[in-house]
């Protein structure tokens, strides 16, 4: 008969679930009131990379950091939804676009002038509502097995050539790529950018979800080239020195060498500005900058910090990268519209 199911065992499992619930809810009820200085950070940068840095800051200053980790874009959407009621003091994003868009809609406040002075031009936003914490350059990743040296394109614009048909991967949904398209609109104009996007699509450029997927696709042999950021390949090589991928840059000044930034800004509604600002200063300090370049493979924003030996030298980076005013990268919406028009989004 059905009723002979052992009630005790099922009940035990159910009570286990209940017990966890009660403990968890009661454990959380009283935990909200915190003593001492603190602030809240929404971080689009991954926990595994920045948590050590944040811990160091907490120990050094005694300021407590409440961090909410998430995707850069999701957090930007969340901030918009929260509006004036947002508990966040700082927003740290993976790319300039997200910060720029928030700044444009008036969500960020002016940072004190002292914070950005002394940074190279490519890392400065004139509006002063956000500041770069590290740089990453756009690069061309490729397969050393399937690409000969004569085939290397001089400019990102050359990738629409027939010889690259179906061999190039990109990620139209990715923030860094979109920032690059915005820069292209600023540099070359709306029409030239639209033509390039359309030509790339017609040349059967392969769309992938993100930069990691692009590098994997090169390894798998699906594509021979990929438009990506400089630090992803390094992580693959760290796990597996035999990984069949390499990367290069375009000729000096090409828009394809754009230096993009991870950046941080303070919310208009911030309630703990003092504590928050001390964190921004901490990130721009020597110590944190050395961490970004040595551990995370990114470019420091200070000229007095030597980039990781696997990266190009600082002067070299400044020489080959196009000078694009970071403030002009705010028009993410225009870029998205263009990507929609060309059916890439």
């Amino acid at each position, binding site marked *: 008969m059905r009723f002979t199911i052992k009630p005790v065992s099922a009940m035990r499992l159910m009570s286990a679930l209940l017990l966890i619930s009660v403990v968890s*809810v009661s454990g959380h009820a009283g935990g909200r009131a915190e003593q001492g200085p603190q602030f809240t950070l929404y971080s689009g940068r991954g926990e595994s990379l920045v948590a050590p840095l944040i811990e160091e800051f907490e120990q050094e200053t005694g300021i407590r950091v409440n961090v909410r980790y998430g995707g850069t874009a999701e957090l930007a959407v969340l901030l918009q939804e929260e509006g004036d009621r947002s508990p966040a003091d700082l927003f740290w994003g993976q790319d300039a676009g997200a910060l720029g868009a928030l700044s444009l809609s008036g969500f960020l406040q002016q940072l004190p002038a002292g914070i950005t002075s002394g940074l190279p031009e490519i890392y400065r936003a004139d509006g002063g509502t956000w500041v770069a914490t590290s740089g990453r350059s756009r690069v061309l990743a490729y397969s050393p097995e399937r690409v000969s040296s004569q085939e290397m394109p001089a400019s990102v614009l050359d990738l629409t050539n027939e010889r690259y048909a179906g061999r190039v991967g990109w990620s139209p949904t990715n923030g860094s790529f979109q920032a690059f398209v915005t820069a292209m609109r600023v540099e070359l104009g709306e029409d030239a950018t639209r033509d390039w996007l359309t030509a790339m699509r017609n040349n059967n450029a392969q769309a992938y979800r993100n930069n990691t997927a692009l590098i994997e696709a090169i390894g*798998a042999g699906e594509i021979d080239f990929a438009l990506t950021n400089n630090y992803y390949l390094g992580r693959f090589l760290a796990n597996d020195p035999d990984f069949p991928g390499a990367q290069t840059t375009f000729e000096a000044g090409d828009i394809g060498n754009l230096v993009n930034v991870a950046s941080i800004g303070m919310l208009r509604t911030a309630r703990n500005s003092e504590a928050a600002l001390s964190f921004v200063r901490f990130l721009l300090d020597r110590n944190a900058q050395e961490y970004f370049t040595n551990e995370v493979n990114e470019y420091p924003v200070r000229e007095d910090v030597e980039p990781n030996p696997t990266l190009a030298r600082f002067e070299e980076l400044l020489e080959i990268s196009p000078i694009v005013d970071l403030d002009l990268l705010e028009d993410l919406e225009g870029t998205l519209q263009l990507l*929609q028009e060309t059916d890439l989004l």
Partner: protein
Amino acid sequence: MNPALPAAATRRPPWYLVLPAGAAAVGTVLPILYLILRALDAEPQQLATLILRSRNLVLFGNTIALTLGVLTACAVLALPLAWLTVRSDIKHKRLLTFMGVLPLAIPGYVMAYSLISLGGNYGFLARIFDWVVPRPRGYMGALAALTLYTYPYLFLNLRAAFLGLDPALEESSRSLGYTSMQTFLHVTLPHLKPAFLAGGVVISLYVLGDFGAVALMRFEVFSYAIYTQYSSAFNRVYAAWLSLMLLTMSLSVVLLEGRLLGRAKLARVATGVARKGRSVRLGWWRPATYLYLTLLFGASLGLPAVVLTYWLTLSPPSIEPLRFAGVFMRSAAASAPAAVVAGLFALPIAYIRIRYPSRISRTIERLSYVGYAIPPLALALAMVFFSLRSAPWLYQTLPLLVLAYSLNFLALAIGPIRSSLLQSSPRLEEAARSLGRTRFEAFVFTVLPSLRRGILAGMVLVFVIAMKELPITFLLAPTGYLTLSVSVFGRTSEALLAEAAPYAAAIVVFSSLFVGLMLKYEGRH
């Protein structure tokens, strides 16, 4: 008279059941309201271009093709397995059942990723056997990945149906001279229809809403487009329109199920106890059966296991045990209450739906199914929107996260409870009433005990799925509340696969443990 109804079917259901059911219904309507609000923000001109984009049509076609494909493939995988574990003389039925449910514990992106990392110049096959096959992608890739981790929903339903099927029916058919094939087609299969529909509706809604697998496989469907809008765009308006279109599709699925199910009365009407059917000998089919099982479990369990192990061996993970334990506990501490709350909502919804059928009780049940198909990001944003406006003290607290989980996964808890209800007779309740018990007492002492299995199964399902959940956790968890799934995402998105592996493995191991416990108790007839 319909045996599923109490004597006075026209009576109103008691308030203590209506209240939670109604509350859950309101909860699922909130996100829809939010989407409509956002959708109305659109400027008319922009709207026309957004809605009439020819691309929407492509997305629509892709979504339908994928849903139908996954349904068919799930049926092909699940039906033989359900039959084998109930009707055949195969050994280790309990273990096979466990393995058939286990894919539920595997996060979708792990499954899709395993399939992808098989092929290609630098995939497993290439490196181990020097055997280069193209990586799965597009329609076929998404189809394979989704099928491999959603077929358990159908398997569970079909298995329950086989268990509840009266062998007398099939025996009568055979005695009337029909072959076993004819009997299967004309007698057994029609009786499996409700199970097919119940499993099918959950799978369809899952496919409509899933984002992980389609994104990895680069197959563009509605859910992918919605995610892309939210994640690259700050354009919540277009995302809202796409979400509403997706919800319309989900609603159609739910309504279609209702229509197809019709007024089928498939419950056993005879008094007395159903006998267990005699086991069918596999005979010469045995080798084919083993081949099928090897392929099925090799793909659905072996592959992800190999990939996770590979990640774990990439570099010895340097994990601080205390930190890891904290992350683990937080995952459990959010998912367990969600399971309980979902159970508490699901019980009255299923009960009212079965014992007091009416337009309202049907609507409530359907709404909870639609809740399952609301894009999680939209659901989370709706919670942000409403809690900040009406109950700011609730914002970014654990209770709100728990509530969001339970509303999102309510449909998973309803299914098993409904099945148990359909199998339990209302006569016991009537007997208790006639012996002078109040309605409440009759419910607590006769109905609840017979539903124990269903409630438990529903709660475990919610628990296991909530452990893997990502977008809702991102937006609604208390600040600083790092869970396993958030930890996995943060690392994989930065290409730190080795660092992600222990967290992903913890999700799989812990969830499997619960699935195992559930089946252990379920198996005790």
